[in-house]
């Protein structure tokens, strides 16, 4: 999401600037007087979402002052187990844009302090490498990215370094074979390099699944680092929501120390607390990428944006997924 403020002598001129700069899809968030009371100032946002207020069910409204959008934001952040310092930081930023819509206000706070990147796009020539501690959903995330490429008729290669876990290769090779793809298994960084360069893809994706790494074991991290460096991969940390805040942050920091700067969130369907993920990402300044809502491959991944993250945080848990993402799922 992008916010931009335009100042002009008249509303019409300001609107013209808005559409010239942000396109026809821009949504006007607020209009007010220009600096020194002269002219008009229009704040606009672009995003392919709607800005309507969500229905917040009765039992979810934590305080009697809930008409106060900032109270709503604070109580939801608190319910997610967000530490007070981070909640206050987000609140402060939420008050900085001229809207009292809590979703939009929180989205703009996320927009200010977090970055959001798409992992698979045509301009990224780097192999994507999915990394993380045991049992976070790496292989499923890999399968989802691969499935998406196959459906989009994009060439894709799948390689795994997962030779430790019993059944690790079998699980992935079963998934790739359903999609009519080969799976190369490699045993060393040199092997990975060879696999990538022996059969170079003109275009398209190279996806690498990795074996789980203990974030507190230096030697395991070092080996992973070698794999990453061997092919100049774009490493993506696969981490579940709902964990302990300190632990999640420690894990993210351990991977960040070997150059991992993107995070893909899993298990969003079976958790109700996003505070740990928010904290870990804020502390490490990693980029949000996508979230994996369900273990079903068919349900795929969803790009996360400031607005969808805000919806996710400010939603009734029972309807959380659909409502947060109904405008983003393909």
């Amino acid at each position, binding site marked *: 999401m992008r916010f931009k403020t335009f100042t002009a002598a008249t509303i019409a001129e300001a609107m013209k600037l808005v559409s010239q700069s942000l396109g026809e899809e821009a949504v006007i968030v607020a209009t007010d007087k220009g600096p020194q009371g002269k002219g008009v100032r229009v704040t606009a946002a672009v995003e392919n979402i709607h800005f309507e207020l969500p229905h917040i069910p009765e039992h979810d409204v934590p305080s009697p002052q809930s008409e106060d959008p900032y109270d709503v934001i604070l109580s939801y952040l608190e319910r997610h187990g967000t530490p007070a310092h981070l909640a206050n930081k987000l609140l402060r930023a939420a008050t900085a844009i001229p809207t009292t819509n809590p979703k939009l206000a929180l989205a703009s706070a996320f927009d200010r302090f977090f970055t*959001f990147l798409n992992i698979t796009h045509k301009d990224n020539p780097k192999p994507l490498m999915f990394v993380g501690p045991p049992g976070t959903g790496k292989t499923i995330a890999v399968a989802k990215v691969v499935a998406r490429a196959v459906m989009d008729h994009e060439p894709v290669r799948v390689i795994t370094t997962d030779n430790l876990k019993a059944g690790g290769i079998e699980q992935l090779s079963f998934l790739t074979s359903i999609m009519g793809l080969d799976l190369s298994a490699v045993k060393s960084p040199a092997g990975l390099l060879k696999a990538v360069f022996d059969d170079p893809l003109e275009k398209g994706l190279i996806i690498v699944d990795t074996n789980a790494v203990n974030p507190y074991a230096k030697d395991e991290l070092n080996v992973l680092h070698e794999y990453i460096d061997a092919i100049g991969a774009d490493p993506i940390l696969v981490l579940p929501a709902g964990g302990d805040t300190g632990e999640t942050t420690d894990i993210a920091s351990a991977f960040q120390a070997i150059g991992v700067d993107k995070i893909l969130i899993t298990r969003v369907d079976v958790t109700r607390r996003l505070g740990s993920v928010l904290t870990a990402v804020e502390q490490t300044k990693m980029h949000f990428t996508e979230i994996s809502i369900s273990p079903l491959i068919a349900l795929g991944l969803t*790009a996360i944006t400031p607005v969808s993250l805000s919806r996710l945080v400010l939603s009734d848990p029972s309807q959380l997924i659909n409502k947060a993402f109904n405008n983003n799922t393909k």
Partner: protein
Amino acid sequence: MKSNATAIKQDPSSAQEHVPRTDNIIAIASGKGGVGKTFLSISLSQAFSKLNKKTLLFDGDLGLANVDIQLGLMPERDLGSVLGGGINLKQSIIHFDLANFDIIAGRSGVGNFATLPPLRLAQLRNELFALGNSYDFVLVDLGAGVDRTMRLLSAYAGSYIVVTNAEPTALTDAYAFIKITLYEDPDAKIKIIINMADSHKEGERTFLTLSNACREFLKISPQLAGVVRRDKKVPDPIRYQTPVLTRYPNCHAASDIMDIAYRLTNMASKNK
């Protein structure tokens, strides 16, 4: 969304565009109470006015408002009347003839606004910042401490002047204020006034202690706005209720404050 090849977050210049930062708003803060925030807020307002800068002093110590008390005012209108409904913020402005600046008084002694809901606080701040359009400077005398109320009220001020003296607890509290402000608002501009210094030299040493801590742990170097010496001429405000710049315009403290005002007008005036 899919074709979004680059970071959705924009370059820093446009990221700041939705922050309503207003250069001529100066928040006077401290961690600890009793270090001279209110005294300096009043005196700086008067100093600005002497430099022909139109100035508004807002008593933002919502828990323990006392600008009016230190000035011996009995304002008919104050923030209480605004928050109770009835009048708007602009209507609550009173002119302080003696020193020629405007004041929005807090409500001393009666009630406690420190528990205002966040929306009301943000609105109050936005209204105040909007009033700033018709002033060269708006000074916000903040309460002590670092509670949320105070942080929201002063969020996105053009700059923060953090007041401290040489006492270790005042210094650590000032550091805590700076740390939390920069955590929440990494672009905040922080300046320091060392008050109640025995000499300029001693004040500069105190500043170094604080700025070294900021450099080492926060990776920032705050600016020294100035040192104000401890001065017996600073009257016991409750007893005399007359601003120092009026009673003793040439005393040490007054001349130090004039120096600071000169410096701040060069740095932060709206250049009208």
